[in-house]
């Protein structure tokens, strides 16, 4: 025990006596102070453990404090009983709204990305980030797009020169991921992608992807479907019906499109559903088994290993998550839009 402690106790009770507004609260305070288990009572009890010299100095202090506080209590009691209107506080209308603190906001795509990344991290995927500008080899040639192949037309490319381009997809990192180490390999790649497209409510020249790559021995197409079904169910926190359609991308064989039942209409009352356009399904993840040529280019032996890859459009996922109806809001920088997304 220290003199300090007594002082603190005194300050604390002084403040509390000062702010007490009813005689009942005051009575309670008194019990807390000098009742059987009161704070001062406890302090006095603990004196017994100390040396005589300390006992006398601290005892004196305790006593002093007790006198001061009891005096204050008495004065306050008198004041409260005799002049109930003595203590004046400004009037409060509790129905009036509280003052909004100025809080920050993370972009809706950031929020959705973080959530998706967290799920994949739990599943054991490493996080990679794509470059903004890459070369033709990484964006196309290493992905089984032969030079001059019509498949290159699938993506309208913005070119810096014959070799450099702002990436058209996060698969631009696939070759580096494959080369990073011996399988088993599991990684997701985040990146900002660009295509030469006119913008409208559903098209943007700038968008964001989450690419996934998984390579090991005996990895199957069923594993791919299962992995993404589990991810989507975890993301939307519900069981989802999944539909798989064949699709074509040069860097996978086979290529598929994973569709989920529309999370808005649940395949009921479909006609009126704006999100799925009445089909009851929403295309969510283009994916596929990594093409043997891509594995080979990445230094992975397709005779021993197989793997799958996918790309999730984070802008679209964000639109679905928050019910955003126009993709152009994302880069608008408009605070009326951005400040709606609170977490």
């Amino acid at each position, binding site marked *: 025990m220290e003199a300090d402690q007594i002082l603190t106790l005194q300050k604390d009770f002084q403040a509390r006596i000062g702010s007490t507004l009813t005689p009942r609260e005051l009575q309670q305070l008194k019990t807390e102070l000098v009742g059987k288990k009161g704070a001062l009572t406890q302090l006095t009890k603990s004196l017994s453990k100390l040396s005589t010299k300390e006992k006398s100095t601290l005892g004196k202090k305790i006593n002093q404090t007790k006198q001061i506080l009891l005096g204050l209590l008495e004065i306050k009691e008198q004041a409260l009983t005799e002049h109930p209107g003595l203590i004046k506080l400004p009037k409060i209308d509790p129905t009036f709204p509280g003052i909004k603190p100025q809080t920050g906001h*993370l972009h809706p795509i950031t929020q959705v990305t973080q959530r998706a990344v967290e799920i994949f991290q739990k599943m054991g995927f490493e996080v990679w980030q794509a470059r*903004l500008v890459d070369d033709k080899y990484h964006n196309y040639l290493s992905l089984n797009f*032969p030079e001059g192949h019509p498949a290159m037309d699938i993506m309208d490319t*913005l070119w810096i020169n014959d070799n450099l381009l702002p990436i058209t997809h996060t698969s631009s990192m696939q070759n580096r991921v494959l080369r990073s180490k011996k399988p088993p390999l599991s990684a997701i790649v985040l990146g900002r992608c*660009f295509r030469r497209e006119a913008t409208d409510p559903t098209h943007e*020249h700038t968008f964001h992807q989450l690419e996934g790559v998984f390579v090991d021995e005996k990895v199957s197409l069923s594993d791919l479907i*299962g992995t993404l079904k589990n991810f989507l169910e975890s993301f939307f926190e519900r069981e989802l019906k999944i539909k798989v359609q064949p699709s074509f991308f040069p860097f996978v064989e*086979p290529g598929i499109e994973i569709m989920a039942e529309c999370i808005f209409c649940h395949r009921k009352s479909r006609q009126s559903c704006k999100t799925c356009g009445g089909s009851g399904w929403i295309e969510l993840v283009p994916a596929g088994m990594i093409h043997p040529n891509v594995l080979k280019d990445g230094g992975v032996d397709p005779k021993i290993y197989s793997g799958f890859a996918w790309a999730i459009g984070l802008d679209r996922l964000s639109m679905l998550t928050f019910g955003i109806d126009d993709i152009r809001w994302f880069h608008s920088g408009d605070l009326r839009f951005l400040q709606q997304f609170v977490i």
Partner: protein
Amino acid sequence: MLISYNWLKQLLPSLKATPYEVKERLSVTLAEVGSVKKRGEDYILEIENKALTHRPDCFSEYGLAREVAAAFDLKIDAPLPGSNELNLPKKKGGLTQELKVKVVDQTLCPRYTAVVLTNLKVAPSPNWLKTAVERLGLRSINNVVDITNYVMLQLGQPLHAFDASKLINLSGARSKELFLGIIVRSAKKGERLITLDGEERRLAEDMLLICERKSGKPIALAGIMGGEETEVDNSTTAVVLESANFEAFNNRATSRQLGLRTEASLRFEKGLDPNLTMLGLNRAIELLAKHCHGNLAGEIVDIYPQKAESKTISIDCLNANQFIGVNLTAIEIQKILNRLEIQSILKPRTLARSASTSVAGERSSGQVAAGSTFKLTIPTFRRDLNIPADIYEEIARLYGLNNLTPTLPKRSIKPAAVNSSYSLEQQIKYAMKELGFTEVYTYSFTKVQPFSGFNLFQGSTLKLQNPISPELEHLRTTLTPSLLGKTRENAKRLEGFKIFELGKVTWPSEIRRGQTKKSRGGLPNEPLLLAAVWYQKENDYQKFYYTAKGEIEMLLKKIKAKLKPTPNNSRHSLEAVIINEQGSKIGFFTAIDDSTFAFEIKLDSLIKSTDPLQFTTKFQTISLHPPVLFDLAVIVDESTAVEEIITTIQQSGGELLVNVEPFDLYFDEKTLGKGKKSIAFHLTFQSMEESLSEDGVKPFFQKIVQALKNQHQAKIRG
């Protein structure tokens, strides 16, 4: 691609499915069918061309019918159009010239098939033909042209008809020795051709041409569009009917270079089966004879030096099952492949394999035996099937992608490596959010803006060759201008706000002497930047500044960086440099105008190999003895930095001085004198061992006062 449901029914009379059921099924076995539209008595199904990029055989009704048959496990009953023997009477009269064809570049033209037809009557198409081409999206021109198009839509083989008389005229030969000949060769520099659409095309080398043989005059862009000079018109009576095969990449390159895409190039650029030319030609001859009174004038010319043979692929059933994640028997696999016209022979098992397993055994156990290998013969129209994985896809899609049981890969539970850059980004985003900033995304492309003074990068920008608009031509090197743009827009609506953006920008790497683009990989640097803007329309300028400064300092503390301001800045050039732990400049903090502050930092040097989210705080023991507090106010020159004064106080105050906190700053010429400022400090003395008394601390205080007087000519107030 469009496909007529009625035509499907003709080829597949046993098809029971409705047009909508066909749509559903094809969508899960081939490619998404976008729509079904009723057209009169017919239904037209549409599949986006992009989705069939890999399936040149499906750019025809017959090819799609084959896919429908496979999907529903049906057989096409009608014979393949054009596959029946031609049996045409040779009529007298008309042109009798022999067609002479020479193919110079056989890699670009693997097969050239053509024939001369005479006694034709060109007329508007009969109704059935008109409907047939129009329902699939083409314009009806005349019976001859429509028939060539009709055959293309049915079989996928583009054809072209040249007016034979016009071709003869081009040869320039005298009437005595009429000459009809064609040469297929690459263009020479400077050649020109007026195509059927009336455009004069400047040809580049390597573009494949069809030319009149004697004069060498170009008459068509091979596999793209014919020339105007040999166009079939109402007076045409004889044609050279071409059904050729052209190499895909060259065709695509030419069509892209000229910006000319046609129904023909759409098919050739995907790579067609050379075996299709004869079918197409036969079918067209048959129709021209029937509907345009045409008859053959001579033999069919067929230059086909290297016949395309069926490929063989071997697949292992166990691998197929493992790859797809199913458990099919060899017989089930064989049945699926049969539906696709892929012949399969089960290879005899090697002796090393257990003799107890057999195909029959597989059937009863439902297990496929290891080592069951199929040798497959691939029809030549399936040019997309080359490797086992291609076959696995065929098995999977016809088995039914939606019949697969979703499984999870078996993997080790070793935690994935941490990406410190990603973690740092998230940590900083949260820190900015805590400070009340709203995150903004802006485009990576900008119009170049003059942004001197505090740009972290001084080099030039990278430019796009084909930007979306001039405003989006350059790859940005800094984030601040974009943020200031968004600030101006939001300022129209809001009194005050704080925004930030975190992202990569592009700094072209300078090529130093002795370095080549290759040695740097040619890739630009992509530093990670953080930028933020404070905006407050009406403000108490001092409070606005110190609040902003307090916020940035809070952020910088987290990333172990600090501000290095210069004192005595004028209001409009308030600017500070941000330095990292090592003292190098990594950013700036600056006033933009009376209501705007901005900062930008390069975060790269902060990305360490360790996880930035790990706990780095070390607990400081708290003294249990009461502190002694002093306040001290000093008057110094305006140009004296507060930091310097603090340093002096700390150095002279001794060990017991635990905290120095400036709290009151003012400028007042009347009371302080010109060029002077007054700053007050809270000084805290505290000991870990004992309670200090005011008298005990006094000597230290005096030392501080003395040091301030000596070093800063400070006057002590009060």
